[in-house]
């Protein structure tokens, strides 16, 4: 079935404006794309496939209402949402192999949970310590000033010789991206391969 992009954008605009009925159109159109990637990621007998699809579509609707804007590419948006949820589920299962599921019942996060919630506190602390230790001296100094010294952004701007405080926030963002890259590489992987075991 070919995706009707015009109809999709129309339904999204209507839903953002408050038309609940248009949400059904959005879900019906994106269901095909979302179901395709979820079914490709999870195995045929995975009991959570349909839940991931429903969870994704619901999250998209919630986003549209909360943000009040439509993504530039709704299909790519929906597909990436679905893939992230699949990854979340996969990581949770991989990191908890061999653990009695009943013991973890109170802690099993849904696919919508933050990736950091998949890790226990000690592991998070150790990984974060390593990630921060691997940063260059400039990043470490900046984060220390912000986190520990609580130096005002204005003072940091003057020390750095920047014309606006946004430059400091941007630099902090770059440092945190390095931390995230470290986490992705060490914990959540960086290369996709698919293995099939009979």
């Amino acid at each position, binding site marked *: 079935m070919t995706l009707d992009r015009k109809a999709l954008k129309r339904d999204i605009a209507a839903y953002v404006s408050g038309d609940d009925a248009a949400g059904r159109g959005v879900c019906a159109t994106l269901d095909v794309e979302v179901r395709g990637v979820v079914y490709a990621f*999870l*195995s045929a007998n995975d009991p959570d496939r349909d839940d991931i699809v429903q969870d994704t579509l619901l*999250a*998209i609707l*919630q*986003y549209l209402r*909360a*943000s*009040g*804007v439509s*993504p*530039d590419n709704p299909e790519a*948006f929906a597909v*990436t*949402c679905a*893939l*992230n949820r699949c*990854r979340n589920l*996969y990581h949770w299962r*991989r990191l908890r192999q061999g653990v009695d599921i009943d013991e973890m019942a109170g802690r099993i996060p849904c696919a919508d949970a*933050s*990736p*950091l919630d998949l890790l226990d506190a000690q592991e*998070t*602390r150790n990984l*974060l*310590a390593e990630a*921060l*230790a*691997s*940063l*260059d*001296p400039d990043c*470490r100094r900046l*984060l*220390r000033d912000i*986190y*520990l010294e609580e130096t005002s952004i204005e003072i940091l701007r003057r020390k750095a010789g920047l014309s606006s*405080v*946004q430059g400091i*926030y941007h630099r902090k*963002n770059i440092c*945190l*991206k390095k*931390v*995230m890259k470290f*986490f*992705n590489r060490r*914990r*959540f*992987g*960086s*290369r*996709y*391969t*698919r*293995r*099939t*075991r*009979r």
Partner: protein
Amino acid sequence: MTTEHSATSYECVDPNVGEEIWRLDIPNLDAVLRRELEAHVLVCHACRLHRDLDACARRLVRDGEIDLGATPAAASWSSGLARAAGIAATLAIVASLVGVLFLPPRPVGADMAVRGEVEARFTRPVEGQVVPAGACCLSWTEVPGATRYEVRITDRDGDFTWTGTTDRNRIDLPEDAGLTEGAAYKAVLSARPVDLLPPGRTSVAFRSGTSFEVAAHRLRWAQRWIHGLGLAGLFLLALAVVRWRE
């Protein structure tokens, strides 16, 4: 049958918006933009991880569980090692390439006797070397007392002959000398006065080839220390790349 997927990192659901989430740190951010960015963080695992790491790092550093003080010795050592390895790799690879291009290669076959070793020998080309079919240069060790040298080049079948004389210990073979690509030749050196060198004793066998064959021969038969230098350079380059990626 079960299908496993290796772990893969989270992707931002809308990179155009995700690039702006740092603006959430700005206290007086426009309300409409804040609403959009906060909604994005809720739906995007990648950006939520980013924000959670920020909050978690802040908490752990303030609680003293993580020290952001002095630059850790291991990290600076590691980055310094990567930098040093990169520089050393570049120098080693460049030096080995220069050696391959400009220094004479080893004679082909370690057990082959180099002709004319005792009294005089050809230094260019060396035994078995591949030279360009066009102009090339022949040189040899000086013979004390020699006032003139004569070089005679023949092909294997004896159909080709070229003779040149010079008063220096080198001679340039002109382009129109007629060396054929892929053919094998032998150069014989004689000196004047004639009794300085035993006749036919100082000679070298070589081939002419294409530019690619010339380069391949140089690479294959470069001095062993050049090979070692090049391999060391490649190893250091790989080390630098691994450290850099970390």
